[in-house]
């Protein structure tokens, strides 16, 4: 598992081009949302949580298919599967590599959201960071899982979001609601419910994806 994660990250580090491209795409997405929503400061502030998470989803989805690409091109996947190792370790390795990647992208666009959308991050910085982490874990879990399939068939660019996004609705709702609540003082303590939902979601689907992975990674 460590080897797989390390290898994926090493590949990404050498070809920083992809990371840069995803980051620029995320920034672009944020700008476009801004144009779509209009220049009213209060409206942008209210929408900041939603825009942030949609940006994460649209740019993050570009990462997952690629994480299988090198193996597909070189046929390394067949070789990897020939070893009698546990399949779940392949999943865990890819999950970690993708998680690191997406978190790094978020590290860049979060300040951008603060600037462009007047996001009052300082109201609850650590809580918001925790929500980012929890939501990203759920996102990357399912993204890594579905990409194992989508990356290997035709129309993969649209198939992955088609499979992935409906499944992420609870994450999107919970993360955006929790973020918005926390940034506005969370007078009603709503964020706790949403955090609980995120944790439950992450646990259930990490286990489910881990168990199901052996069925999808084989030839």
């Amino acid at each position, binding site marked *: 598992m460590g080897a797989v994660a390390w290898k994926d990250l090493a590949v990404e580090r050498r070809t920083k081009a992809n990371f840069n491209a995803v980051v620029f795409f995320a920034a672009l997405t944020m700008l476009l949302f801004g144009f779509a929503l209009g220049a009213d400061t209060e409206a942008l502030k209210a929408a900041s949580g939603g825009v942030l998470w949609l940006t994460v989803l649209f740019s993050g989805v570009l990462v997952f298919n690629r994480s299988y690409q090198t193996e597909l091109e070189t046929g390394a996947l067949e070789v990897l599967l020939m070893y009698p190792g546990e399949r779940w370790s392949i999943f865990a390795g890819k999950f970690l590599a993708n998680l690191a990647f997406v978190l790094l992208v978020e590290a860049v666009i979060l300040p951008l959201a603060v600037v462009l959308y007047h996001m009052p991050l300082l109201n609850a910085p650590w809580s918001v960071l925790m929500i980012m982490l929890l939501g990203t874990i759920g996102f990357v879990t399912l993204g890594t899982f579905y990409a194992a399939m989508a990356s290997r068939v035709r129309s993969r660019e649209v198939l992955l979001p088609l499979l992935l996004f409906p499944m992420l609705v*609870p994450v999107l709702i919970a993360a955006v609601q929790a973020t918005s609540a926390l940034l506005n003082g969370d007078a009603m303590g709503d964020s706790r419910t949403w955090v609980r939902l995120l944790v439950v979601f992450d646990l259930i689907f990490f286990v*489910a994806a881990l168990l199901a992975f052996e069925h999808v990674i084989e030839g």
Partner: protein
Amino acid sequence: MTDMNLGQGAGADVAIPPKRAWLGLVSLLAIAGTQWWAVSNSAPDRDMGNLQKIMYVHVPAAWTAFIAFFIVLVASAMYLWKREEKFDLVAASAAEVGAVLTALTLALGSIWGRPTWGTWWTWDARLTSTAILLLIYIGYLALRAATDDAERRARWSAAVGILGAINVPIVYMSVRWWRTLHQVQSSPSTISSTYVDGLRLNALSMTLVLVWLILARYRAACLQRAAETASENAALGGRV
């Protein structure tokens, strides 16, 4: 009406079920009958007026859509356990029929909502969850369409079907919380007990339609699969 068995062919050992056109006729007559009975025997509701009569198609559609989804879950699990192709074909058939019923549920919910709330769409918890369910089904079917290898298609569909089913209650809960946190939920189905008989009857008859549709789709799927394998065998020069 006899079962055609393909004993010899490699791979496709799924027995092709008989045609059962009579079941189609009976079930369609059944829903026509129960709908007629329910519509003509129900008095206008205090709040909804005669619009409550839409429930006699909307609720059964939703009910059977969920049964279909449940069948997808069970058949998918059975496939991963037993690796018998028939389970995969049952799952796929139930998914397609379920998608149709889910779309119907949404359309009927929208038709009900327009005169009731003034808009065609209301982001109400049930309607929204149903829309997401439809998209999960469609993703499942799109994955099947994109995967050519039968064994891979079966394995992948099963995994996707199971994960999708796990998510259904989570999606419903999260959408409901989202809608009710700061507003009172107006539930469209607080229906008085006088309508329960009509609803139950129509749900039953629609279930019969569901059974027929899934069986018919399953038969077509078996034939398709058998044709696929037969032509593979022919191409390989083997006997069919």
